[in-house]
C-alpha cells in the first residue's frame, strides 16, 4: 500500500493529482469520462466579482506541442457561482478549490470573503497570473510589491487554505515565491501560462483576437519544472506544480523537482480521463520503485 495523501497547508489532499483552473470547467463537464471524485482536488474556473464575457473570438491557437488561449476569465461572477454552481458540486469527494481572479485588490478580497463563507470550499487559489485580461491579472503576478499586497489583503479576508498561483513571466520566480510566502500564502501553485503570440502568415493577422495569449501544454514543461525547482529551494510552503503534464512520468518529474501536488490542464482536452491515468501511474511508480509514501518523491531530485 502506497500512501498517496499529501498535505497542502491545513488541507489534506487524498492524493496529489488535481486538475487545473480553466481546463476542467466545474468538474461535471468530465463526469461522462471519469469519476471526478477520485481527484485530490478540482481547481475550478477563474471566478471574479461579477459577470465577465471574456475576450472576443478567436480565443485559441494551436502551437508546436502547445496551445495559446485568451479566454479572458469568462465567468458569471462569484454570486452566480455561489447560488448556481456551488450547490451542484459541493458534495464532490474531491476538494473544490476556487480560482479567484480580479482586476483590483478590492475585487480579489470581495470574492475571497464570499467564498470564505462556503463550508465546502476549503481553499482558494489566488490567480495573480492571468495574462488575458487588460487590467489586473498578470500585473499582480509580475510586480512583486503588488503580489505582496494582494496576498496580504486576501489573507485577511480568507481564513482557510490560501494558495497563490504564480506567473512564469518574470525574471526571478523565487522572488515571487518568497514574497507571497511572507505575505501569508499557505501554498503556491505554478506555473500559469507563458505569454505568447501566434500569427497567421496568410492573413498577416494574429490568430487570437487579443494578439497575445497564454501558452500551455507540453511545450512549457521544461520551464515549469525549472520554476518549481527554483521555488522549492526558496520557500518552505508546499508547492503545487503544473505546466505541460501529459502523463504520470511528467507528474513524477514535477514531484521530484519539488511539487507536493500537481495539476493537469491542457492534457484534459486531449484525453478527458488523463487525470485518473496519472493518478494510477504515480501509484504504480511508487510501488515499483519502493516508495511507500508519495511524499518521499517530493524534491527527491538528486543534483
Amino acid at each position, binding site marked *: 500500500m502506497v500512501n498517496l495523501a499529501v498535505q497542502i497547508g491545513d488541507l489534506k489532499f487524498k492524493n496529489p493529482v488535481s486538475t487545473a483552473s480553466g*481546463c476542467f470547467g466545474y468538474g461535471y463537464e468530465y463526469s*461522462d469520462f471519469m469519476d471526478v471524485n477520485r481527484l485530490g482536488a478540482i481547481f475550478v*474556473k477563474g471566478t471574479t466579482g461579477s459577470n465577465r464575457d471574456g475576450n472576443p*473570438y478567436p*480565443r485559441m491557437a494551436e502551437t508546436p506541442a502547445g*496551445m495559446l488561449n485568451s*479566454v479572458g476569465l469568462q465567468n458569471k461572477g462569484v454570486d452566480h457561482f455561489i447560488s448556481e454552481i456551488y450547490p451542484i458540486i459541493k458534495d464532490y469527494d474531491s476538494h473544490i478549490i476556487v480560482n479567484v481572479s480580479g482586476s483590483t485588490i478590492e475585487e480579489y478580497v470581495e470574492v475571497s470573503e464570499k467564498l470564505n463563507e462556503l463550508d465546502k470550499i476549503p481553499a482558494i487559489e489566488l490567480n495573480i497570473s492571468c495574462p488575458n485580461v487588460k487590467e489586473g491579472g498578470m500585473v499582480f503576478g509580475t510586480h512583486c510589491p503588488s503580489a505582496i499586497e494582494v496576498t496580504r489583503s486576501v489573507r485577511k479576508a480568507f481564513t482557510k487554505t490560501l494558495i497563490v498561483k504564480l506567473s512564469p513571466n518574470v525574471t526571478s520566480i523565487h522572488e515571487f515565491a518568497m514574497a507571497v510566502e511572507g505575505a501569508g500564502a499557505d501554498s503556491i501553485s505554478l506555473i500559469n501560462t507563458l505569454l505568447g503570440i501566434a500569427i497567421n502568415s496568410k492573413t498577416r493577422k494574429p490568430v487570437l483576437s487579443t494578439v497575445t495569449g497564454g501558452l500551455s501544454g507540453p511545450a512549457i514543461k521544461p520551464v515549469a519544472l525549472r520554476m518549481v525547482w527554483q521555488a522549492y529551494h526558496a520557500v518552505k510552503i508546499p508547492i503545487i506544480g503544473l505546466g505541460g503534464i501529459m502523463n504520470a512520468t511528467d507528474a513524477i518529474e514535477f514531484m521530484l523537482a519539488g511539487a507536493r501536488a500537481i495539476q493537469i490542464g491542457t492534457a484534459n482536452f486531449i484525453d*478527458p480521463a488523463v487525470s485518473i491515468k496519472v493518478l494510477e501511474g504515480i501509484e504504480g511508480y511508487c510501488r515499483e520503485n519502493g516508495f511507500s509514501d508519495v511524499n518521499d518523491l517530493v524534491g527527491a531530485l538528486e543534483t
Partner: protein
Amino acid sequence: MKKRVQDFTIIDNRQVNTEYYVLELQSDIALADLKAGQFAELRVDGTSEVLLRRPISFYDVDYKKQTISLLIQEVGKGTRQLAKAKPGDKLNMIYPLGNSFSFDGIKKALLIGGGVGVAPLLLLGKILKYNDIEPTFLLGFRNKDYLVDILSFEKYGNVLLTTDDGSIGEKGTVLDHSMVESGLSGFDKIYTCGPQVMMKAVAKLAEEKGIDCEASLENTMACGFGACLCCVQQTIHGNLRVCVEGPVFDTNEIIW
C-alpha cells in the same frame, strides 16, 4: 446521451474530390445515438504537428453496421494527416458532442450548404425524411471539381446545385439560385452550414422571408465538450460555447 472516448476502426477512406474525402469508421460496440448537427473530436496520431483533437461533424451513420461516416476537407496539418488513414487503422474519437438541429412541427425544410459545410446536412436530411419532413438541398461548391457525392443527398430530397463558375448547377453562390429568387414559399425552416459569410447571408434572407433558420457554426476548439471556453460565439444570451450550446444556433440569436 453519455459522451464517450472510443476507438474506431477505419473501414474505408475514399477520395471525394481533390480536397475532400470520406472516412468510414466502424465500432466494435453499439454506437451511441447521434443527432444531426452533432460532431466528434478526432485524435490525430502519427504527426508531430498536431496536439489537440479536431472537430468533425457526422456525415452519416448506420446503427446496424455500427458505422459512422465523416466528410473531411483537407485544409491543414490535422486533416492532411487524417487523409492518410488506411482501412484497418484505428481512430480515437470523443462523441457525440454538441447540440443538434431541431425540427419539431416542421413540414418542408430547405437545407443550404456550402463546401464541406454540406456534411451535417446529409444526416439532417436523412433524419428529416424519416420524420416525414421534406428536405430540399441547396448546395454550393467552388466548381464541379469540388462536388461531393450528390446521389447520397438525392436519396432524401431534391438537390439544387450552384457553383461559382457555373460548371455544374446554376452559376453563382447559393443565394443567387433561381429558387431563392422565386420566393422560398412553402418552406417553414431553413438550415444552413458553410462559410460564415454564406450563413450570414442565409440568415438575413430567412429573416426577410420570416422563415425560422438554424445555422451550424464553426469555431476553434480545444476540448469540444464545454470545459475550456475557447469556442464561444457571441449571441444575444452572451458568449455561448459552440461545442455545447452549439454548434447549432437559431440565427436570430447570433451576433455575427
